[in-house]
């Protein structure tokens, strides 16, 4: 891991948060969340009574092997799916109570996605890819989109197509897109999984900056070093959450 990443870890302002404060500050709260799918061989329980909370401004890493339920959890936290049991509250709203259309709106308001494979639309420029998130959220604002790209160091690459950008640059466009609507939660799914060491450091620094600025980051990762940057880890195995030290240090809340 590059020096820059270690610097991010060192800069985390640690502060223990009492349980009562944690409950009050929770932007994500899962209580016995279960997700079952009907399969050919019967019902498959992809997530089994998951209970944990994430407070505002916290940087949490979700780890676990393939098939452990990480994707299901990301699906649920990203409001792309709803639990079949238990309660999932995001920013105080029970997602089960939202209709499909409301859930689309809620997702656009509350969640910024950062993907391992960047998922930029190949025929839109970097600027337009950022504006795409604005388009589905409310209305497009070119100046804001430019500012977001400048923030991630791509002010001079706004008109480039994804194919004209490096992997690291594409991921930074993806981060700018995730930030453009100012969502309270950033959901990063293996954000450095497709990057070389230099670009990993750039993205890790960027996430560190966002964390310092008070963004809540939920990061799914296989990479122990990236997971080490987070304030705490939530480990999954066979759909069960088996480790979530709730008393772990968190950053000072600055939202």
């Amino acid at each position, binding site marked *: 891991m590059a020096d820059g990443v270690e610097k991010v870890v060192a800069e985390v302002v640690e502060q223990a948060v009492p349980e009562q404060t944690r409950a009050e500050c929770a932007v994500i709260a899962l209580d016995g969340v279960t997700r079952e799918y009907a399969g050919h061989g019967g019902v498959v329980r992809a997530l089994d009574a998951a209970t944990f909370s994430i407070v505002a401004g916290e940087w949490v890493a979700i780890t676990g092997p393939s098939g452990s339920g990480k994707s299901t959890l990301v*699906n649920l936290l990203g409001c792309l799916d709803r639990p079949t049991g238990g309660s999932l509250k995001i920013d105080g709203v029970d997602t089960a109570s939202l209709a499909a259309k409301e859930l689309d709106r809620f997702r656009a308001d509350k969640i910024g996605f950062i993907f391992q494979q960047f998922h930029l639309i190949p*025929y839109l420029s970097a600027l337009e890819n950022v504006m795409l998130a604005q388009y589905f959220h409310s209305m497009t604002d070119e100046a804001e989109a430019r500012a977001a790209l400048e923030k991630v160091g791509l002010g001079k690459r706004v008109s480039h197509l994804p194919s004209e950008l490096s992997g690291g640059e594409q991921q930074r466009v993806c981060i700018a*897109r995730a930030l453009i609507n100012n969502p309270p939660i950033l959901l990063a799914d293996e954000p450095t999984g497709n990057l070389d060491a230099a670009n990993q450091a750039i993205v890790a620094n960027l996430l560190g900056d966002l964390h310092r600025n008070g963004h809540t980051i939920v990061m799914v990762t296989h990479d122990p070093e990236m997971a080490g940057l987070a304030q705490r880890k939530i480990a999954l195995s066979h759909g069960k959450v088996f480790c979530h030290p709730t008393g772990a240090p968190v950053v000072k809340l600055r939202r």
Partner: protein
Amino acid sequence: MKLTMWSMLRRSIAHRRARSLSALVALTVSAGVATALLTLYADLDAKLHHEFRNFGANVVVTGATGASLPLDSVARVQAAAGADATVAGFGYAVATTDRGTEVVVAGTDFSAIKRLDSWWSVDAWPVAGEADAALLGQRAANFVADEHAVKLVYAGKTVTLHGVGRLRTGGDEDSRIYMPMAAFTAWTGARVSVVEVQVPGGAAKVEAAIARLKTALPGLQVAPVRQLVEGESRIVDRTHALMYAAVLLIALTVGVSVLATLSASVLERRRDFALMKALGGSQRQLMGLFLLEALVLSLGGVAAGYVVGSGLAWAISEGNFGTATLPRVGVLPLVLLLNLLVAVLAAILPVRVLRGLQPAALLKGE
């Protein structure tokens, strides 16, 4: 700069040129064939009836007992049948040639039968005004010694005709000698005994003309040439049915092709759509984006297909009927409807795929 659904659509179509072009070509083929067939269909009745006119009379007027008709019968038949009908009177007599063979001689109006029986194969028609001109049937020509001086005897009276040309029909006409009506009457004393009429139009129009003829010519027998009238009606009906079936079959074939193209279009972009869903795009927005693309391609296909199809109809008409068929704006709404229907039906499956997208799994690359 603004990012709109339209600008995204434009970029998307341009980015996937090959796929978009393939869908456009399929929809153009559908619209083109529909335009061509519907344009021809609209003109079909007139064209087929025109063709059937070449087969000769479809109504025959005769005396009650085979007797001669009144002197003015041809004029009265023409008046009752209508100005657009072609009328020719015939008088018949059996004469003897200079070789001693009996032959049927028919007196008629050459200019009228030239129009009435345009299917006859004649190497040279007699010119109007030639009182002794004759048209010799292929077989009848063998019964005379000299085609240029055809000597015929009827009831002891001899007439010499100048054979102008030969006639080949493959029927009874090949055994006859045709001559001008006035010279025939002067020679034989016989008048018109049969009037053949070609009424343009379908069976209903022929029936109406027969009714008028019966009223105008009481005491005469007016009968349709059943085989021709019914055959024409049957062929017109069958051609209509065939064209309907062809349009449907082609629409179905093109529908399958468009279905494959649109399905592939959704499948290859399912990650893009999943991303849009993850960014907050509603089901309606995504459907709108996809269906707008299908609509744009469909309208493009209709525009191109109308031009291609009109040209095709023109070429088919020119090649088969010898007359051009002009583009008909009236077929455009039908073609548009058909193409939209094809696009909508072909979009059902891809839309189902789109509705069932699982963004998390897709964006994860699973």
